[in-house]
């Protein structure tokens, strides 16, 4: 196994040279920080990822989570990972001091999540689950809920989940049937229903698990407008914070999955075998909008997981390609000459470049979003906050869907570098591929993300979200164009940007005319085109920073030169395809829309 999971030099380049996150130090929330604390945090996370998460990666897959009919045991190695994360404060890097966090920026949290996920995504999800549950309660819960739940969740004492999906309500959350009835006595609700596919849903890593659950209150309006959010602990929590009795959250089973097997993906029955108490988070019938706030984080986190897996696979592939001897230079006809490492073959380097370019573009997109989220969280300027929000709204489906779609392809290329050995479970790439598949499915399947982008984000505030992004992209294209060496690349990205705007206007007219089905039927192609523009833009921004560093006589010139070439590779090989997709979209290809179900 490779002992390299990520390129830390590149991550530092993104954080400090491209995104200039030291700008965040101006905000009071981060005033105790410095580049030094950031570096120490990401270095510590990388050490943990390599030395604690990664060695358990294959083992957790082979052992899996185990259900004995009533309880779930997490894989053995997960206990040590949990302990390390708890001791290290990794359940709450960004959280405020009052709740036990260290007030790191989200940009750093994104990197540490990336590193842990590169080491072992199943494991990272247990930790992230607790963070997510706490984040919801912190954002929308009342003081009592905060007092009871936040410290133990952020401190790694308890686990957490988010429980939306039901057997008959996956994509269509408006159809959930789990109910909450106000208890005749007390401030709680009585919960009944079944949730399915709940990540970290049950395990023995912590003495309690906190489930934020989507429910319907009695008399709630049908559909998404009648969904509320309640917090349901596995064991009730007394007013003084001590644990009370079992809350009748019963595990019916866990899934046997193609990947992420170290994860306990549970079916949970609430209140089927006795009273199950839940407490309302925020106001009635606002549950879905609360959950969406967390889901935006969760979607970006899914993209992070996806590119993290691609990063681990890429570094395995590089190592293998340097070591595996096979074949000779095409021009070498001497059969007795020694065979050469496969990395000497251009086609193998093409596969490695494809991965590297994807990873660098995707990380660029994700860390751009993280910095925007940091600004949004900290700025007092309402205009800026609004712009940040618009940028995040548009980019979130790209971070989730495009990154997970392409990560899978990237790992396919990594596996291909291994030849037959890649198909065998001895090397970790096969598992990395299996693990990665679900990222295009959960947190809203990618088809749904595409509809979210085209159906909701593009028309949002009369196109303001897309405009905000295009303005940002335009600025950077102009900056790159001013550097002679980058002008050809900038022109290509510019051409694609023009095409994207053109297609968007064209589709907009169809949408305005009321032909909603026609408008949306090529959403997936639209998301691909749109995201490739974003990736091309990110490469261009990185290339600009690299060129500037070279012009300033930077020390490690090879790093910057490699960055420039990677950007060139992405832009030259992808942008023409993007233009082709734009053509398809403009032609409003409608076969799938009209094709009768009976004909299949």
């Amino acid at each position, binding site marked *: 196994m490779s*002992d*390299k999971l990520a390129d*830390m*030099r590149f991550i530092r380049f993104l954080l400090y040279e491209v995104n200039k996150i030291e700008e965040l130090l101006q905000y009071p929330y981060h005033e*105790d920080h*410095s580049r*030094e*604390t950031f*570096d*120490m*945090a990401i*270095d*510590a996370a990388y*050490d*943990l990822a390599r030395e*604690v998460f990664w060695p358990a990666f294959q083992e957790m897959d082979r052992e899996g989570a185990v259900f004995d009919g009533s309880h779930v045991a997490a894989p053995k190695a997960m206990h040590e990972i949990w302990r*390390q994360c708890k*001791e*290290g*404060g*990794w359940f709450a*890097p960004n959280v405020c001091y009052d709740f036990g966090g*260290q007030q*790191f920026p989200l940009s750093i949290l994104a990197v540490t999540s990336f590193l842990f996920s590169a080491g072992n995504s199943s494991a990272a999800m247990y930790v992230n689950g607790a963070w997510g549950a706490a984040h919801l309660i912190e954002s929308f819960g009342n003081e009592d809920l905060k007092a009871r739940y936040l410290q133990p969740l952020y401190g790694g004492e308890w686990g957490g989940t988010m429980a939306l999906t039901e057997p008959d309500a996956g994509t269509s959350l408006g159809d959930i049937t789990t109910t909450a009835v106000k208890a005749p006595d007390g401030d709680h609700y009585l919960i009944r229903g079944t949730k399915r596919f709940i990540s970290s849903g049950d395990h023995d890593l912590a003495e309690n698990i906190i489930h934020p659950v989507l429910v319907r209150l009695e008399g709630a309006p049908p559909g998404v407008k009648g969904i509320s959010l309640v917090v349901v602990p596995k064991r009730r929590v007394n007013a003084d914070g001590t644990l009370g009795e079992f809350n009748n959250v019963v595990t019916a089973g866990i899934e046997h999955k193609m990947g992420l097997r170290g994860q306990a993906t549970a079916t949970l029955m609430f209140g089927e075998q006795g009273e199950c108490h839940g407490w309302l988070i925020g106001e009635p019938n606002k549950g879905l909008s609360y959950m969406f706030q967390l889901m935006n984080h969760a979607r970006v986190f899914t993209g992070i997981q996806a590119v993290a897996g691609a990063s681990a696979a890429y570094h395995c592939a590089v190592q293998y390609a340097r070591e595996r001897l096979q074949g000779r230079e095409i021009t070498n006809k001497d059969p007795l000459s020694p065979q050469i490492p496969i990395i000497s073959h251009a086609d193998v380097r093409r596969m490695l470049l494809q991965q590297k370019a994807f990873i660098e573009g995707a990380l660029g997109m994700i860390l751009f979003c993280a910095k925007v989220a940091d600004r949004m969280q900290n700025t007092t300027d309402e205009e800026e906050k609004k712009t940040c929000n618009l940028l995040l709204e548009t980019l979130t489906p790209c971070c989730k869907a495009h990154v997970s779609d392409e990560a899978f392809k990237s790992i396919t290329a990594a596996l291909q570098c291994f030849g037959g050995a890649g198909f065998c479970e001895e090397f970790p790439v096969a598992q990395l591929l299996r693990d990665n598949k679900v990222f295009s499915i959960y947190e809203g399947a990618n088809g749904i993300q595409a509809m979210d982008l085209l159906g909701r984000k593009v028309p949002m505030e009369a196109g303001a979200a897309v405009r905000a992004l295009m303005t940002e992209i335009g600025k950077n294209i102009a900056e790159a164009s001013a550097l002679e060496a980058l002008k050809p690349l900038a022109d290509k990205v510019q051409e694609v940007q023009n095409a994207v705007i053109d297609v968007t206007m064209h589709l907009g007219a169809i949408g305005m005319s009321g032909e909603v089905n026609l408008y949306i039927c090529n959403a997936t192609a639209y998301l691909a085109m749109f995201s490739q523009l974003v990736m091309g833009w990110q490469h261009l921004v990185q290339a600009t920073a690299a060129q500037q560093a070279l012009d300033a006589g930077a*020390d*490690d010139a*090879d*790093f910057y030169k490699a960055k420039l070439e990677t950007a060139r590779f992405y832009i030259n090989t992808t942008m023409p395809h993007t233009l082709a997709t734009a053509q398809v979209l403009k032609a409003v290809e409608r076969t799938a829309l009209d094709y009768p179900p009976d004909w299949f």
Partner: protein
Amino acid sequence: MKIVVLVKRVPDTASVFKVASDGRSVELDGLKFVMSPYDEHAVEEAIRLKEKMGAEVIVLSAGPPECKEVIRSALAMGADAGAHLLLPGDTGYASRGVAEALAVAAKTLEPDLILAGKQAVDDDAAQVPERVAELLDLPHASIVTRLECTATAVTVDCEVEGGQFTAELPLPALVTAQKGLNTPRYPTLPNIMKAKKKEIRELTLDKLGLSGDRLAAGMTVTAMALPRQQRLGKILDGDTAQRVKELVRALREDEKVL
């Protein structure tokens, strides 16, 4: 009780190394630097002693300004304070010169116990701590895999070729850490934040009344080369019994390691 830990900033051995254009040193550009891994064991042991019996742990490092990063990571593990002896240049010091400087610096910190890694993973010289001890006239023990400490003495298991021995040293003393001694802890986020506020004392050769002349004295590097890469892997044929037999034979006769 006061424990001083000697730590060295070294290139991460996972880096890709190149010989610099002078042919006599390592190209430093693009290298990532870390605390020498054996020193991490020394820091860990000091923190454990602190937790067990109460002690002040001071981490001392000599070298360029960037040594502070290594000191900070020891502080993030839980050490109390740091001391940085600024040396001119980046590399090219000789063990003797550095030991002379460190001995004077360590003495100003008045340690009851000095801990260090058994060797630094850059030059692997394994000389500096022992030289420091001799210069300070302290009893010392090297390559230690177990350590127990009282207010007046330290008992250690030392690795020696083919076995180990146990020794008791009266304090003050110096001990060098081997891998098996403990498992170094990871820096925690709360400790990273605390580390920022901990003091790092600035020491200079001037302030200690030393001159830089002796740092490199007594050693001349004439050439530097990367180790030859050889693929000596060998795959054994036959069933398991045959292969084991062949393996044992090869280890005995060809490699002469058994």
